[in-house]
């Protein structure tokens, strides 16, 4: 899109886009510096990438491995993997997210887009984050899987997690959000609660920002 949404989100997530950035980051009012992705995960952040094949999943590895890769401490003891536990975790998330697969030993590359997205979500849910940044979570997946992803997001919110959803589909944004920030050309150009948001005034905010220059 060129609005700078992914760049912003990845920069928040432990300077993963590039380290040459400025600005302060606060979580619950506390200023915090995150130098890399590991520190961001430890600060209970999660970033679910829009590019699930390039930045998200290891396609040549099975679901089991992809589910635990961001939280190996959770399935290992002193660097030794507890394969039984890892298997149980993968099955647990497979059932929870209704991932359609014959087995968690299936390579992720063999799954459909929607099911890959669920594995990616499972991987980040297993890190037990407080704040999830979902970058275009429904891009390129079928309608049924989209609906299931929405249900998972609502479930996460009801568990008390914060979800930041990045999307360019206005009906999705208006339907899912509590508060909407609008970005254009790398800057915030508008903020509104969802009950005031319509497609017209979101578009108006973007167009006005363009005129100002």
């Amino acid at each position: 899109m060129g609005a700078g949404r992914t760049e912003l989100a990845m920069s928040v997530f432990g300077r993963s886009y590039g380290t040459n950035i400025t600005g302060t980051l606060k979580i619950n009012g506390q200023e915090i510096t995150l130098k890399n992705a590991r520190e961001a995960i430890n600060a209970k952040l999660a970033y679910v990438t829009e590019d699930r094949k390039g930045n998200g999943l290891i396609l040549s590895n099975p679901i089991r491995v992809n589910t635990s890769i961001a939280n190996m401490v959770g399935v290992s003891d002193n660097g030794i993997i507890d394969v039984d536990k890892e298997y149980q975790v993968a099955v647990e998330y497979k059932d929870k997210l209704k991932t359609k697969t014959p087995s968690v030993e299936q390579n992720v590359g063999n799954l459909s887009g929607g099911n890959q997205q669920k594995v990616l979500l499972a991987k980040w849910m297993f890190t037990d984050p407080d704040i999830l940044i979902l970058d275009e979570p429904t891009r390129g997946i079928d309608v049924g899987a989209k609906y299931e992803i929405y249900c998972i997001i609502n479930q996460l919110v009801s568990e008390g997690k914060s979800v930041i959803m990045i999307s360019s589909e206005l009906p999705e944004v208006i339907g899912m959000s509590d508060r909407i920030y609008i970005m254009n050309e790398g800057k915030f150009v508008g903020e509104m609660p969802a009950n005031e948001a319509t497609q017209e005034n979101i578009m108006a905010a973007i167009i006005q920002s363009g005129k100002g220059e």
Partner: protein
Amino acid sequence: MSNVNVLAVLKKYTMVIALVLIVILFQVTTQGKILIPQNVNNLISQNAYVFVLAAGMLLCILTGGNIDLACGSVVCFVGGIGAVMMDKNINVWISVLAMLAIGALVGVWQGYWIAYVKVPPFIATLAGMYAFRGLSNVVLQGYTVGISNTTFLNVFGGGADCFVPDFLGGGSLNMTCFAAGILIAAIYVAAILKNRISAKANGYEVAPLYSVIIKAVVICAVIVWLFYTLANYKGIPTALIWIAVVLLAYAYVTTKTTMGRYLYAVGGNEKATKLSGIDPRKPYFFAYINMGLMSGLAGILTVARATQAQPTFGQMYEMDAIAACFIGGASAYGGEGGIFGVIIGAVLMGIINQGMSIMGVEANWQKVVKGLVLLAAIIFDVMSNKKK
């Protein structure tokens, strides 16, 4: 069993099937000489360095098809230092530890440039290949240094007496060796049973019973046959113990440890691995340190077998190790492969070498055949990746 299953099994065990066919071919063309006890023993002793180097090389290849061109020179360098140390009457165990430590240090040196400075592995290790070859000549001053320490030779598979002694006294058949084979097969079966029972108790899906039985019977038969054959010669060559230790250790590292997992992850998708909070530099560093350590051990085995160190030792060893990995199914793109494949690849290379030598094929033609086998294995890898 459906057609899809048959195809999947065939694909998984292509190289095993190729190995069996090649053994049968040589069995016919050499009138059975390839599998006589002395030749089987030589196959293991002569190729010990391939197994050891290939295990280290596998880790490097897993990180993304990266290779170590320097390991042949490092073998010579480490072997040369050890030979000179023992020639100056330094204690054999201190010498051995020094050789392993120097190997690991070489790994640290190369790993640092590759992992932390991002020098392409091909270039970094090419530099090492020249530098350590030169240093080997410096250490040995261009001469051959003999090794006369019998402890060293016996323990690391050189000289006339490098076999595990027969404690059980079985006459012409080495009973210790045969008993060890039976014991290893029994341990293997017990381990499979234990796994299967615990998997069933936890409600995991398990492979169908017939396939497990077929696999177990084949592997046990191979183990018992191998040890029976060795027992008919002089028993267990000490080099085999080192091979087994290395292969078991690396099988464990690659499948059961988080570092092993990171090696596969970095090779499979480095960007995703980094975004999952894993520092991708660590697996690279780890792989090259291990490669250095294995070069050290291979250096020990090489000079022990030759009972001397020469400045020309270890030439093309890196190529044998790389070929064994790729023939054994390691992906040239990284992220795929395993120790079992390395064993198959190394044995296949060794059998081809030995079979052709027995047949009296000229050395130059042997190289042509080896090259074609390697090419065929890589073409297979590329084609099967394309279909995905």
